[in-house]
């Protein structure tokens, strides 16, 4: 039994999540308690399995899991390489606390236990989709998982059933489906050129024939860029994100801002770096495009965030800005920058989920959504606000917090490739982050307001936030293991 589990871990991780998702709606009718347990258990399986796989990859190197017994160009395979393992760990570490946070009052937030059961079904499906994307090595398989992730994300936004959330969800659905269309069209062109769908084989074929189809390949690349760009809300294509992430219920916005958008970036990385290959897409000028997109969305997202007065909207815009970092790091495209960008994925995931969960707690306790009305809340909710502060400092990139490590590596990478502008933009971005986050902290702690009836949230909602905040500091002070994973992932992406 143990041998079976250990040799099938990657698929079992996905299957456990999927199976619990299938079972939840059956149980949610009468036995809501089982729903809770199933959610937590499957999330824990994800965390444990992720750590086990990471250990395996770090000790014995990457390996593949062949599905259905058919060799890769014919069948499908899961790939367990540093990149996928890194993202699995990210997903596990972030989604487990979010799930625990959302357990106690989800039935109240989405109006009913049955609906809460559906919410958790979608939650688990979303997680499963992200994991599947990370493991997938087949372009079409990636697409199908992207669809699972997208549809469940839309549903998570709509779960609130308020007018704003339904409208945001529809906007999101239209934009995201447009994005999927672009991705699928890109996959189509790639398939026509190479006759393969497995990324490794696609790259092998492309290396031989790409000079015959440079324009077609360029179009495929830009389709991928547009498609994944819409889904991960890069600047000119971001219009759905602020609405969706601010209108969703708190755990959903934490999950979407913290993980979903990054999942699509992982998809983009896989397509660009594994399926197309760094030489080819750099020759096509795509990495310049990535850099420019990254810089624009960093600056523009930050400036938009500065002009927002609602807490959740400001956080949503800051997601756009922070994803700009990741795009910029990928565009710079050397080892340090890519590993920095990957590290920024996990650190920003932690940071943003803390920020959103803390914001959700604050909003639910005080009933205020405007930043200016939060005065004095730091006194009443010291732990929540403490986590919020830690996350803010991390996002600014203060040393000893996790945000710094990623930024450091990205600046290192940009200066190594003599890209002064990128380094300046990264530093200016963190200043702007200070500009839109520190006023919140200052208002909460150092201004006085009417906070008489506000209390700290219950322990079961507080502990997940604190755990996430602790991870921010732990990864800031001891980033070695994660950094090793991201470094190996970067090496794999660049030199395999």
């Amino acid at each position, binding site marked *: 039994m143990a041998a*079976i589990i250990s040799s*099938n871990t990657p*698929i079992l991780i996905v*299957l456990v999540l*999927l*199976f619990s998702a*299938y*079972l939840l*709606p*059956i149980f949610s009718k009468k036995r809501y308690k089982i729903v809770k347990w199933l959610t937590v258990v499957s999330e824990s399986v994800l965390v444990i399995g992720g750590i086990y796989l990471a250990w395996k990859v770090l000790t014995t190197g990457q390996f593949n*899991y*062949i*599905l*259905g*017994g058919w060799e890769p160009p014919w069948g499908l395979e899961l790939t367990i390489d540093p990149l996928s393992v890194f993202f699995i760990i990210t997903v596990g570490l972030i989604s487990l606390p979010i799930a625990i946070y959302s357990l106690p009052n989800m039935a109240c937030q989405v109006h009913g236990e049955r609906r809460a059961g559906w919410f958790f079904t979608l939650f688990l499906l979303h997680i499963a989709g992200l994991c599947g994307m990370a493991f997938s090595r087949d372009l079409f398989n990636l697409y199908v998982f992207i669809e699972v992730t997208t549809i469940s994300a839309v549903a998570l936004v709509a779960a609130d059933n308020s007018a704003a959330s339904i409208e945001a969800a529809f906007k999101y659905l239209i934009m995201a489906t447009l994005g999927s269309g672009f991705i699928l069209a890109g996959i189509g062109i790639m398939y026509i050129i190479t006759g393969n769908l497995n990324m490794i084989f696609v790259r092998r074929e492309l290396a031989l024939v790409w000079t015959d189809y440079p324009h077609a390949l360029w179009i495929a690349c830009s389709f991928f860029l547009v498609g994944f760009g819409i889904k991960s809300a890069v600047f000119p294509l971001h219009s759905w994100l602020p609405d969706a992430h601010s209108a969703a219920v708190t755990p959903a916005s934490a999950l979407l801002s913290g993980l979903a958008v990054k999942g699509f970036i992982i998809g983009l990385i896989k397509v660009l770096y594994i399926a197309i290959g760094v030489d080819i897409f750099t020759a096509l000028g795509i990495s310049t495009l990535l850099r420019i997109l990254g810089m624009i969305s960093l600056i523009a997202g930050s400036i938009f965030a500065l002009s927002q007065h609602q807490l959740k909207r400001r956080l949503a815009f800051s997601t756009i800005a922070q994803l700009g970092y990741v795009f910029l790091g990928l565009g710079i495209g050397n080892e340090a920058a890519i590993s920095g960008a990957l590290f920024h994925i996990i650190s920003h995931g932690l940071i943003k989920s803390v920020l959103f969960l803390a914001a959700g707690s604050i909003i639910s306790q005080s009933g205020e959504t405007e930043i200016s009305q939060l005065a004095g809340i730091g006194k009443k909710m010291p732990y929540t606000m403490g986590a919020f502060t830690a996350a803010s400092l991390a996002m600014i990139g203060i040393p000893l917090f996790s945000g710094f490590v990623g930024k450091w590596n990205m600046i290192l990478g940009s200066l190594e490739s003599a890209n002064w502008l990128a380094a300046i933009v990264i530093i200016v971005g963190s200043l702007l982050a200070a500009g839109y986050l520190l006023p919140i902290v200052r208002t909460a702690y150092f201004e006085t307001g009417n906070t008489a009836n506000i209390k700290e949230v219950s322990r079961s909602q507080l502990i997940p936030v604190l755990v996430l905040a602790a991870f921010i500091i732990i990864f800031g002070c001891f980033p070695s293991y994660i950094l090793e994973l991201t470094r190996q992932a970067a090496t794999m992406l660049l030199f395999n």
Partner: protein
Amino acid sequence: MLDFVLKSVVTVLIPFIQMFGLYVIFHGALSPGGSFAGGMILGLGFIALNVVFGLEKGQEKFSDEMAGFLVSLGPIWYGSIGLVGILRGANFLVNKDSGLPMGEPGTLISGGMISLITLGIGIKVASTIVTLFNALTEEE
């Protein structure tokens, strides 16, 4: 009058629609068609029942609870068949090595787990389309 004609025609037609749906599902291995098309046809048969006779009558034949259960059961069924391979010591979703009887190639009962999976997906698609329709038509 029109109503009566419609009702009697549909009453006659529905068994044939269902039969055709099942035929498409099971014959997917040999001829065009397959689980999705078949399941869709099967489901559309139930929808026709709902449209013509009203939701209450439709619910009698194929209740919402049942549909919801089958929606979950479909993928579980599929996944469990895939797990057989794992229990046999091979990988997930293997067909040939899973130990299921493969049958005579090119006949109706062939391909080991293929027909089982097809049936599962067909039922799932049918129940999905019915649930979908019911959800969309349900009054506020």
